[in-house]
């Protein structure tokens, strides 16, 4: 599975295959896209395509979509989708857009994989780096991952965030800090949480600067990064203001992520916790949950300073578990980056357990949701229990990857320990 020789033909074949598969699902199973759009595992209040359509409808009829409780997505989606031919008449253009975004994400992933950054970062070279999968395999794993496919067919707008994040990383490893920061700003603009990726991404950019244009001073580089992101975000917010003529979109788009006012079930841990939370403690626990989400950034960035791409991967895994409105789209982004660490797979201890837990939760989740919402023979605890299992499985995977990467780092200092029993004190 090392990929072998990648020719132009095989590249094109992979992309065409992925595109044809998606188009075939769109056209041959016309009921499936709407079914998947309605699934809580795929569409969250901040990414749902149906809500996007409603926002678009209101926007085209001169009602502010932000003066309501349905549309919570970034304002720039509105002119983008208005430019496309109407979805109800010519859905094919929307499908093509979503397919193109998936292919763009895959090509970014391919670049990341081919750079070899996962095995040999600027400050660290893994002794196992030769054992890796080619970009072809990694892009194929991403494109044919059922979670990615379901997200694309469900037309969740999180694919745009995924694409922006992957491009930010791809630009960073190829020594284009400006492009990386612009892409990250776009991701932040679309769904807020990618802002937390800024420290490791800035480090990655710093490590991978082109020697001829390198900024040596870390403080200077940090301030440049911060100002680029702030500038791009400022421009995006300004454009949004021009589009909607008010700042209402800030509260509606980002406020909902901060306050979790919409408690629609999803695969995450927040919704049921805040349904059952006592009113007087709600604000406190919102603060705690956000603090918990952001506390990993500093710790991981410092501890795994030598491999910023690992930090980015682990953070994406953590976000897929702990962000306010996670969906399987976030999991698919994390799972897209995990195969980059093929070289540390032998060091992972619980892969089988984690994989079975994730598979178990993916099968049982829809079933229990059905029992609760439709059959009425189960209650909310059924689905809640499955989301707990799902998140525990994912966190097991994240922990295990972290362990493997750290052990890999440690074995550089202690090469004689390879393959031996170890423990942590």
């Amino acid at each position, binding site marked *: 599975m090392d990929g072998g020789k990648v020719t132009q033909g095989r590249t094109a074949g992979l992309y065409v295959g992925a595109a044809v598969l998606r188009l075939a699902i769109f056209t041959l199973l016309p009921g499936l896209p709407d079914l998947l759009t*309605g699934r809580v595992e795929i569409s969250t209040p901040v990414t749902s395509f*149906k809500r996007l*359509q*409603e926002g678009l*409808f*209101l926007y085209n*009829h001169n*009602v502010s*979509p932000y*003066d*309501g*409780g*349905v549309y919570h997505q970034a304002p720039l989606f509105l002119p983008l989708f208005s430019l496309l031919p109407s979805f109800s008449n010519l859905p094919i253009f929307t499908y093509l857009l979503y397919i193109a975004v998936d292919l763009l994400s895959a090509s970014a992933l391919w670049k990341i994989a081919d750079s070899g950054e996962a095995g040999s970062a600027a400050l660290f070279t893994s002794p196992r780096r030769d054992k890796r999968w080619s970009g072809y395999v990694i892009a194929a794993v991403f494109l044919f991952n059922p979670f990615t496919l379901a997200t694309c067919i469900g037309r969740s707008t999180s694919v745009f965030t995924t694409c922006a994040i992957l491009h930010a990383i791809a630009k960073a490893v190829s020594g284009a800090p400006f492009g990386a920061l612009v892409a990250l700003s776009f991701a932040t603009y679309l769904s807020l949480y990618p802002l937390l990726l800024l420290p490791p991404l800035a480090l990655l950019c710093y490590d991978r600067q082109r020697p001829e244009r390198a900024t040596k001073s870390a403080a200077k580089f940090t301030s440049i990064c911060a100002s680029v992101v702030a500038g791009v975000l400022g421009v995006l917010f300004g454009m949004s203001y021009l589009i909607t003529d008010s700042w209402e979109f800030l509260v509606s788009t980002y406020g909902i992520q901060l306050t979790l*006012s*919409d*408690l*629609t*079930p999803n695969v995450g*841990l927040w919704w*049921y*916790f*805040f*349904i*059952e*939370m*006592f*009113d007087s403690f709600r604000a406190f626990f919102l603060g705690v949950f956000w603090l*918990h989400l952001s506390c*990993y950034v500093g*710790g*991981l960035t410092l*501890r795994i300073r030598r491999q910023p791409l690992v930090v980015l991967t682990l953070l994406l895994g*953590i976000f897929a*578990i*702990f962000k306010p409105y996670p969906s399987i789209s976030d999991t698919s982004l994390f799972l897209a980056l995990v195969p980059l660490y093929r070289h540390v797979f032998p060091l992972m201890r619980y892969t089988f357990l984690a994989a079975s837990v994730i598979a178990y939760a993916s099968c049982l989740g829809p079933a229990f949701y059905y029992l*609760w*919402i*439709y059959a*009425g023979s189960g*209650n*909310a*605890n059924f689905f809640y229990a499955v989301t*707990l299992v799902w*998140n*525990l499985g994912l*966190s097991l995977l*994240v*922990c295990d990857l*972290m362990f493997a990467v*750290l*052990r890999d780092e*440690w074995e550089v200092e*202690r090469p004689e*320990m390879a393959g*031996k*029993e*170890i*423990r*942590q*004190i």
Partner: protein
Amino acid sequence: MRQLCPALLLSLLSLCVFPPCAAASASAAADYHEQLVLRPLPLSALLASFNFRSNTTVSEFESGNFRFFPRSLGQILQHAGTRELHLRFSLGRWDAESWGSRPWDGAREGGTGVELWAWLDADTDQEADHKWLTLTNALSGLFCASLNFIDGTRTTRPVMSFEPEGDHPNTSAHSMQLLYGVLPHEVVCTENLTPFLKLLPCKGKAGIATLLDGHKLFDASFQSMAIDIRPVCPPGGECVLQIEQTIDMVLDIDRSKRPRDNPIPRSLGGHELLCDTSKPYHSHDTCFPADQDANQDWSLSQIFGKSMKGTCPLADPTVPPVCLQVPESRAVYTIDGAVEIKSRDSRCFQISPESDLELLLPPPGDEAQDGAAADILPPGTPPLYAERSFTGYGQERGGVQTILRNPSPDTEVEFVYMESLPWFMRIYLHTMEARIAGHPAPSPDNHPLIQQVYYRPALDRARGTQLEVRMRIPPAATVFLTYDFEKSILRYTEYPPDANRGFDVAAAVITILDPQRNGSGRFAAYTIRTTSLLCSLPTPDFSMPYNVIIFTSTAVALAFGGMFNIMVRRFVAADEGSEGGLGALRGKLLGRLGAVAGRFKGNQ
């Protein structure tokens, strides 16, 4: 003396101790009248419409001289700056398919529960909201209803559906704000009737109001209590403030005739059954029950449980207190002394103030059976039939479907359809569609069904959805108006105690626009309220907030703890470093103990 006299009279009136004196003043003013209209309906139903109306001039009202106007309500109106007020308490459903068009053309009807709309004198929205809060809280106390629960989420500001009924000077028209609130969950009952009767000049002690009894009123198939207050300016005269109190009830005659001490219905003996003899299988031992139209014999005391106690001495004596809408051929017996005044389709009865009134309608004779339905007046055809229901299943999403039928063979009907929905029903306006039954495609472009839409989306926990659609339906067509919605899940403290019963969704208000409307004519030709709906939302498990908090926190702690552990601890080979676990703890403890023991020894 002129100023003293009315005040004195008023205090006497409120005590109601000197009827002759009061009667003298009433005849002088003639500003109060009351009337009960009884109209038998098909399927052995009887519509009883009570109407009480009194006027007071605006100048007297403003100087605090309320006359027949209830003081308690008048002071609330003055305090809250209310120009016009409409309040409805309703129960049940008007069955238009069998009972025909509605009393008062639907203008005195409300949706199930409580409905309130008022024009308030306010320059800004904040001022209007403040006055609205004052008004709803005061009315809540006055009528023993939960009107104080009409908060921001249940208040809308309709744009197309309502227009003031009264005459407002043009100068004040622009500073009036309309607010509309509805409580579909409110159960209307006796505690609302008592304050309603107390507003009447005769307080339910005399006149037609003596027939109003909670046991009968709230046992009716349909009942609607209405209070309308509006300024009326007759041409050339002084403006008056008019309060009109209306009660419409549809009684099931058979049910009402059951004795109160033995209300359980018993099956009739074979010889008492009324059979439909036109059925082919009819024979001496098979019987298809016939419609009960033919058996409408009843008396006032059977229906209302008592006879009418005199007339209200304050009422205008020229208005007959009771009218009966039955064909002239129908026999009606009354007590002696009652004078029957016949007009077209209406037979009114005038009695002396002290005598009780009793009406008795005997079973129609055989000659009436020949001419079909000669014993009741044929019900009128309403301009539109409307029916609203939920579609879909499950507690995640659903749809609302309204079936609107224009029965007229040659006139099209134009109306405004208004919904005020709770915020937790997130409607998707882009799915709204109107189509004519039998046409597969949505409405043809050359004749759009939907003329205009006013939509104000809901904001979570702050505001409900307001949807007003102006539509036009061609003659003899049935239109389906549908849209999708999503049910949101609430915080567990936001559910009522009976969470699995569901949430009431207020009735849609359909205002049929008057086609012949000119400048000052009537705005609404007819009004329809659909039934209210019951929307069941997904519910969390209410019994386990602690468990959920603990489980989720455990999952978070496991993930955080696992990562923290891996990040901060050093790697060593399995056989290196200090011992961990229990052994290490034991060693540490022993070491400490040894040290303490050593110190102890040293001291000695």
